[in-house]
């Protein structure tokens, strides 16, 4: 890969969100299907996405801002569904979103990406946000997804949520160390 020539301006440097970002937290935003929200009328399979975020000691991270970005049940980013959510982790480092299950998203050519949501993490100790994805166990498209295929097989499980009861999918995120989550440079 060669660097492209640079023109004009340079993107502003990132800085940590710090420990007090909750001033811009609105807990209702973790529920994308909230009655007074943008998606109250959109139909689809209602799911809960949850998981624990831990650090290099395996300790829960209780101060994280987690953002979610996903397509609608038809795999579109341009339909009525607004696939954005923001969630604070709790004292056990758990995040929890209520949303609709996304559909397969168009990829290059005539291919499709497996259903997935993008997750962004901000916190004290993160000078730049981290980006990862959550996929769903058992999806046939997982086998040919362009991002999952680029992950060494031994680490793929860090991106695949497992079912945990009706409509609940769980994916734990490990920032550092054993079974460290695969983070993406997008």
């Amino acid at each position: 890969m060669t660097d492209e020539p640079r023109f004009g301006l340079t993107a502003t440097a990132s800085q940590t969100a710090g420990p007090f970002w909750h001033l811009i937290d609105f807990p209702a935003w973790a529920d994308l299907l909230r009655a007074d929200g943008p998606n109250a009328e959109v139909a689809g399979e209602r799911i809960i996405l949850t998981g624990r975020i831990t650090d290099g000691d395996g300790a829960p991270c209780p101060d994280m801002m987690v953002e979610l970005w996903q397509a609608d049940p038809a795999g579109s980013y341009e339909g009525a569904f607004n696939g954005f959510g923001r969630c604070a982790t709790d004292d056990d480092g758990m995040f929890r979103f209520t949303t609709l299950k996304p559909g397969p998203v168009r990829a290059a050519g005539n291919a499709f990406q497996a259903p997935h949501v993008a997750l962004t993490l901000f916190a004290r100790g993160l000078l730049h946000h981290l980006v990862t994805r959550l996929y769903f166990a058992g999806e046939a498209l997982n086998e040919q997804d362009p991002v999952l295929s680029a992950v060494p097989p031994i680490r793929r499980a860090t991106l695949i949520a497992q079912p945990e009861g009706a409509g609940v999918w769980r994916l734990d995120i490990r920032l550092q160390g054993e079974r460290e989550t695969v983070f993406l440079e997008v």
Partner: protein
Amino acid sequence: MTTSDQPGYRPAAPGSQPPLDAPAYGSTHKRHPKQPPLRIAATLTETSAPRMSAGLYPSHAELAKGPGWEAQGERIIVAGRVLDEDGRPLRGTMVEIWQANAAGRYNHERDRHDAPLDPNFKGEGRIFTDAEGWYRFTTIRPGAYPWRNHHNAWRPVHIHYSVFGAGFAQRLVTQMYFPGDPLLPIDPVFMAIPDAAARDRLVARFDLDIAEPEYALGYRFDIVLRGRAATPMENPA
């Protein structure tokens, strides 16, 4: 080999972004991934973005004063433009800020700093940029505050910013600093950015044209989000 048909966003200019592992900033020790990130070709997921509007996410840009309330401290106006690396303005993009009060205390239950709270200063704002990419907040100059990173550690005066953009890959959370702050050269968060010019761009400029006579001083802080790459990238797989 898979090829994206989406041109993605340009990679960061060398030295312009802080590393995740910054030894002088203690909280990074156990939180930085040890594996390098996997660079992926852009897909629709990275080139699309949430549609945000004041209807869905109510805006308020007056943090200093309103009907029946008035915050303590030195009133300031912070304003600037949100552009991409090609100099194009980003219109209608959501800009959020949060900050400590004039005494250096956040209106946050976990802030234990022994400084007074101001019942009239909540310290958060949200606005959408106009057609030329401008945003503008009226607020209070925040105070410096201590933190426990090292002995006698104080954060320079700063306002936290959160900015979306036209693509998921443009997401930015940063901090705006004030000119001449003696704490800047000894702040591990600010100094983690390797390139001095990139650090300098986080320092707002004093701007009398933004000030309002008899009311508030003005500071200019422009924000640049990543520009689009010219060509799609190939996935390494």
